[in-house]
């Protein structure tokens, strides 16, 4: 049960775990469970989307024309790319290559920032037209009494997703600091792995949001 012969390799094992493997498995299971809660969290919004689309199918096809498919498409590619760099960061951490892992994390953050900047331009363009969520909605270009509800759902979904991207940027930035300090190795890369899981989910949610919001007509 004890590993007195490998003290330094197991320095990362917290006192209440028997060994490194138990700690890694626990962290991973915990993260998967957390991702389940995220799916249900967004699930509520998806249900709201489904309900309102079932009631007002014509509204959704009308309103979706106001969304910029090119910008959304670029953002989709950017996020898919960031998932690849995140996966590579994990792989390099497993291979003890902290330097490459560091740069891959950096590339992931860069992609996330590109995503947020594009999002910023999309939002400001809509605000300029008067497309605000809820009561502040003043746009007259869509001839439908419930047009503001579509954009409420749009802002809620993309806004919450955007917050998750920002949290991801924070987490990956923290991983970069830790990687620079040499905290991770082939024996211990749990934080990189589970942040990767989180990042892939954020990516995946966008992959559902993009067609549901932008590509309907």
């Amino acid at each position, binding site marked *: 049960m004890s590993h*007195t012969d490998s003290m330094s390799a197991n320095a990362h094992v917290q*006192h*209440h775990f028997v060994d490194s493997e138990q700690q890694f498995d626990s962290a991973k299971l*915990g993260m998967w469970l957390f991702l389940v809660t995220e799916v249900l969290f967004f699930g509520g919004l998806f249900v*709201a989307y489904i309900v309102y689309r079932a009631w007002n199918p014509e509204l959704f096809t009308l309103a979706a024309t106001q969304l910029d498919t090119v910008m959304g498409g670029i953002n989709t590619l950017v996020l898919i790319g960031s998932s690849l760099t995140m996966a590579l960061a994990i792989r390099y951490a497993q291979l003890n290559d902290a330097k490459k892992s560091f740069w891959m994390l950096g590339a992931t953050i860069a992609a996330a920032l590109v995503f947020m900047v594009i999002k910023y331009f999309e939002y400001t363009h809509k605000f300029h037209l008067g497309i605000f969520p809820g009561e502040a909605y003043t746009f007259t270009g869509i001839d439908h009494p419930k047009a503001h509800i579509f954009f409420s759902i749009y802002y809620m979904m993309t806004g919450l997703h955007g917050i998750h991207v920002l949290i991801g940027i924070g987490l990956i930035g923290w991983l970069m600091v830790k990687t620079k300090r040499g905290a991770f190795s082939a024996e211990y890369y749990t934080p990189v792995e589970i942040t990767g899981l989180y990042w892939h989910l954020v990516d995946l949610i966008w992959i559902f949001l993009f067609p549901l919001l932008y590509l309907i007509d």
Partner: protein
Amino acid sequence: MTNTTKPVAIREFPVEEFPETHYLNATKGLKSWMLTLDHKRIGLMYLASVIFFFFVGGLLALALRLELWEPAQNFMDAETYNRVFTLHGAVMIFLFIIPSIPAALGNIFLPVMLGAKDVAFPRLNLASFYIYLGGAMFTLYSMAHGGIDTGWTFYTPYSTNSGSAVISMTFGVFIMGFSSILTGVNFITTVHKMRAPGQTWGKLPLFVWSLYATGVIQVLATPVLAITLLLLIMERTLGIGIFDPALGGDPVLFQHFFWFYSHPAVYIMIVPGFGIISELISTFSRKVIFGYWAVALSSLAIAFIGFLVWGHHMFTSGQSELSTVVFSFLTFFVGLPTGIKIMNWVATMYRGSIWLATPMLYAIEFLFLFTIGGLTGIMLGALSVDIHLHDTYYVVAHFHYVMMGGTVFAFLGGLHYWWPKFTGKMYNETLAKIASVILFIGFNMTFLPQFVMGSQGMPRRYFGYLEQFQTLHQYSTVGSWILGVGFLLVAYYLIVSLVKGAKAPSNPWGGRSLEWMTSSPMPAHNFEHVPVVIHGPYDHHQPIAEFRMGIDAPHHDTTHA
């Protein structure tokens, strides 16, 4: 990792009685408590908090009952009454009952019952406590700033335009949801990954099974409440129009969202109580639990079916007739696993050698009260009956029989059962039994008349009432005073026990699960050895020495650098 083939020897580890150092005094000072990662200390802090909020919610309840002494206004106006019943509900549900058993007693005992040193994520555990406190602060803030008058269900459209502190209250509940989620994630992971050698799923104490099922509900249901409340907050601040009919939204959609969480949440409240009752009935009957797997898996069955019945709260809300019929049909299914539990508990007691100590007294009272609560629930699930009884005192009585007669009595049973273990002190058994009987009488006196009133048409949440109900209302109010006296008595002898109670032995009740195989109070890391489990947790026929086995290692190195 290199020595996996080395043979492992096990031996008995005798329990140290009345230890000098334990988790309560291993480290000292306020900081060692505020920043502790020890699940037992976190559990104790939770326990103190939930008891405090139970006291607050209880005072509000006494105020409500006093106001109802007379049909017309007594000492508070209708507006205040609305705020008081909302706060009573919200405080009792979100601040007391949801964290009561899992986060307080579960936190203290889950790792010990698994033979683990701690939960899988001790820091998340501490975080969940502070998140809970943060949410509680918002609740207290909204109390101070005019309160909230929507009822604890926050139904739209009233909650979107009521002038009260809806945003701070729902934001507090939103925050506390995260605390609940973190507890659930932590417990599920702990059960999967931290069990002692030899402790298979079939040897888990049933309290652990119930916490596991509760964790599943917490993880699956709570996020939906979070998004619902977030949408409600957005509705109030931005007018997003999803729930507010004035803006083109649908208030029934809010009810669907809300009950998709809040019905499963009812099982977050009661299933851990079932777990405690299983422990109590087996230990104090000196018998193997009857139908171990039936009891264990019925918890999971309840967790599953609990997600399919939310529509039974909306029979009169205008959902379609078809869904009404389907939800009613599914609702009856919840009765099956619950009935399985009751039958198995009674079968466990049958020809057992019953020791009527205080915890067992609570368990038997639970059987009476919960059965009444459960059976009246079946009646409410029947469509035609529900149309008559919906939003009457019958519903109020039903869920108090389940939540208070069920969960609170189970909580009290668990508190008395494990009190010697986590405080190291015994309490006055005679006073405890008297208090238990007082509570049982007071409870029935308070809530039994409400079934009658409800079936005669007394609506819930009403400030004034017809004179014909006055006698029953007064019975109920006197009952609430008896309940109050009972709780004061419990508080009295428990405080006396803390101050000058006799020292508790390690296994005062003759239990067989792992928490009884370590000192009272437990050492800081629960066990000084790695426990090994070879028998089931209720195998009272096996020699007790065989429950104290551990891995025979000269020095269990914790690999701290």
